């Protein structure tokens, strides 16, 4: 009776919320108050896929949903990104019959890495995808090892872990898990791989298991690559799903020596997101041809890369989460690799849209030296924290005469509108991007 009441309440509040344009967590919150174990009582679909990690959750989930839908599965997933237990409860209960049976063939969840243990207290995924763990929003998350230890209690012995083999910390999740229930994805050595580490800091220097010195045969980016601990032997497992050939210049990749895909967005992040989505969909029985048909040239709908026009400039906004240096570095590497004359704008105005912080230490973890290349003609530094940005750039090789400091985003946009026609690449976060995009003509 309590379960039915909880489901009914959730559905009604969800309906009211939609009419009022309100968020998606509240109905689940109230439903859980009425029946705290309701998520353990409802009948869930055969496949429950969860995706967590520092980066790539939303994009990976979107691609999994697209593939599974194309394969004829009915997918229920949290498009709105409400990835804590209340949002998940809203999603599940509003898709349940009053008798407690959830519709759909697949429940697909983007799961907040810190709260996964709460979300999966009453049920557990059949497949748990963990994309990567790195320095991300330390003002909420503490540090990657802390996040690792927060995720551990969420892992159930019966679920299949789908893990990034190239991340030494993510690989630790397999240590106490049935090896038959661990599937790995990874990138083989390819032209983007380097022998040397690139970046301001190196979180793969020490083994996450024993603290011993790590050796890398190659790096793909940050501490992601082919690693081996010289002391305990913790090393990159052989992937079950591998990108065996990658050409980011031409935008092509090959999976397991067979399927060839074109990349709509030529970023190493995109490669890993595709691979994670491919792996879990293959494990759910989707045919290779169907997966390739969807992923080939797949354009993400979640708007992390937006094109626009500003005066004579054709612009591209590359969303880089503030407080996440790896996200910044990946986008800066993309700009560095362009080779064509361009201008770059970095905006740090509000560090988060969800909570307050004045913390700017993360700027010192970003490899802004990637912009010290001939084809980057000017770098605009904008927003409230323009002085912190300028101070950080003082410690890079980017020539001072290429820097334009303008705290006022509107004034910067106006100046660009009035002058120049080089392509413009804007690197900023969700919290700040609309402050510029609202002043442009969106494509």
């Amino acid at each position: 009776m309590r379960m039915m009441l909880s489901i009914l309440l959730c559905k009604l509040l969800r309906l009211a919320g939609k009419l009022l344009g309100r968020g998606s967590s509240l109905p689940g919150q109230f439903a859980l108050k009425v029946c705290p174990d309701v998520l353990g009582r409802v009948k869930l679909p055969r496949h429950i896929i969860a995706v967590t990690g520092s980066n790539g959750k939303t994009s990976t989930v979107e691609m999994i949903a697209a593939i599974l839908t194309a394969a004829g599965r009915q997918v229920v997933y949290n498009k709105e990104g409400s990835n804590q237990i209340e949002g998940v409860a809203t999603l599940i209960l509003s898709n349940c019959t009053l008798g407690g049976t959830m519709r759909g063939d697949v429940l697909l969840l983007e799961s907040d890495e810190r709260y996964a243990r709460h979300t999966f207290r009453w049920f557990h995924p059949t497949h748990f995808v963990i994309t990567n763990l790195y320095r991300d929003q330390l003002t909420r998350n503490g540090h990657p090892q802390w996040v690792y230890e927060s995720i551990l209690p969420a892992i159930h012995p019966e679920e299949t872990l789908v893990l990034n083999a190239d991340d030494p910390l993510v690989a630790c999740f397999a240590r106490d898990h049935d090896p038959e229930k661990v599937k790995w994805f990874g990138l083989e050595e390819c032209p983007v791989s380097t022998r040397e580490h690139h970046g301001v800091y190196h979180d793969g220097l020490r083994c996450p298991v024993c603290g011993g010195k790590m050796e890398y045969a190659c790096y793909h980016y940050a501490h992601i690559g082919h690693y081996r601990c010289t002391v305990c032997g913790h090393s990159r497992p052989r992937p079950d799903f591998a990108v065996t050939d990658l050409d980011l210049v031409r935008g092509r990749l090959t999976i397991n020596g067979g399927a060839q895909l074109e990349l709509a967005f030529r970023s190493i992040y995109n490669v890993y997101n595709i691979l994670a989505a491919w792996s879990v969909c293959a494990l759910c029985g989707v045919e290779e041809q169907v997966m390739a048909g969807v992923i080939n040239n797949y354009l993400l709908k979640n708007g992390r890369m937006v094109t626009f026009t500003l005066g004579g400039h054709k612009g591209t906004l590359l969303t880089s989460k503030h407080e996440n240096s790896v996200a910044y570095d990946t986008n800066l590497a993309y700009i560095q690799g362009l080779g064509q004359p361009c201008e770059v704008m970095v905006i740090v105005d509000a560090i988060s849209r969800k909570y307050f912080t004045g913390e700017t230490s993360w700027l010192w973890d970003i490899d802004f030296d990637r912009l010290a290349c001939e084809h980057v003609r000017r770098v605009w530094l904008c927003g409230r924290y323009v002085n912190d940005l300028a101070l950080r750039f003082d410690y890079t090789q980017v020539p001072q005469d290429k820097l334009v400091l303008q705290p006022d985003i509107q004034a910067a946009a106006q100046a660009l509108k009035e002058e120049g026609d080089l392509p413009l690449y804007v690197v900023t976060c969700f919290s700040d991007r609309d402050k510029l995009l609202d002043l442009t003509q969106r494509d």
Partner: protein
Amino acid sequence: MELTIVHLYPDCMSLYGEYANVAVLCRHLEQLGVTVQVRTPGLDDEPDFAGAGFVYMGAGTERGQKWALTALLPHAQTLKELLSQGVPALFTGNAMELLGTCVTDQAGKAWPCLALADYATAETDRRVPEDVIAHTALWEEPVVGFMNKCSHTTGVTSPLFDRLTLGEGNEREKGPEGYVSGNLFATHLTGPVLVKNPAFLRLMIQRIFQYNGWTLPETLPSLPHEEEAYQVTLRELSARAGG
């Protein structure tokens, strides 16, 4: 004028841009005509403290801190002698805890530390990643920054900061924070605390000059953007703190 900085274990005690503390110190010292050499011993190296004129260690993960402790303990006596001579030193984040007598981890295991100070630390399961405004009697301007800890430190008799208007002190919210004894400075503030706080940086420079018997100019040079960046963060955090 020549100075050797020993930056201990940056391979595991670099939670969040800690290297910038050394970078900003080097740049200012070089502006003042000091030739600076930086040693960066890793966990597998024997730290060479010979001729050291400044010692720094930054924050790490809880596990990284134990690895650093294990590496440093055999050199505790050398470090103690160096610091007792008055060599300026700064320990930030959970590196501060290593100066005390002991760190007790979440599992209850006690890790004997360097015992250069009388305090002890206990780790908890509660993380405190928080913005900070701190006040000290050593200089006028409030200190701004960020802490990222999961511990309480008890028994500090000479805190670096008398009180906080934002953030968690050694033992309680807004209580006294950090530790200072002569030229040894420690705080749970993490990241580039000297970049964010020009006044704190000036004090470090003054102590380095005093220790070496060098003549300090009446006014220390301020490099571009440092003061402005500090003022913006202070303004933002003060608005948050309601002050």
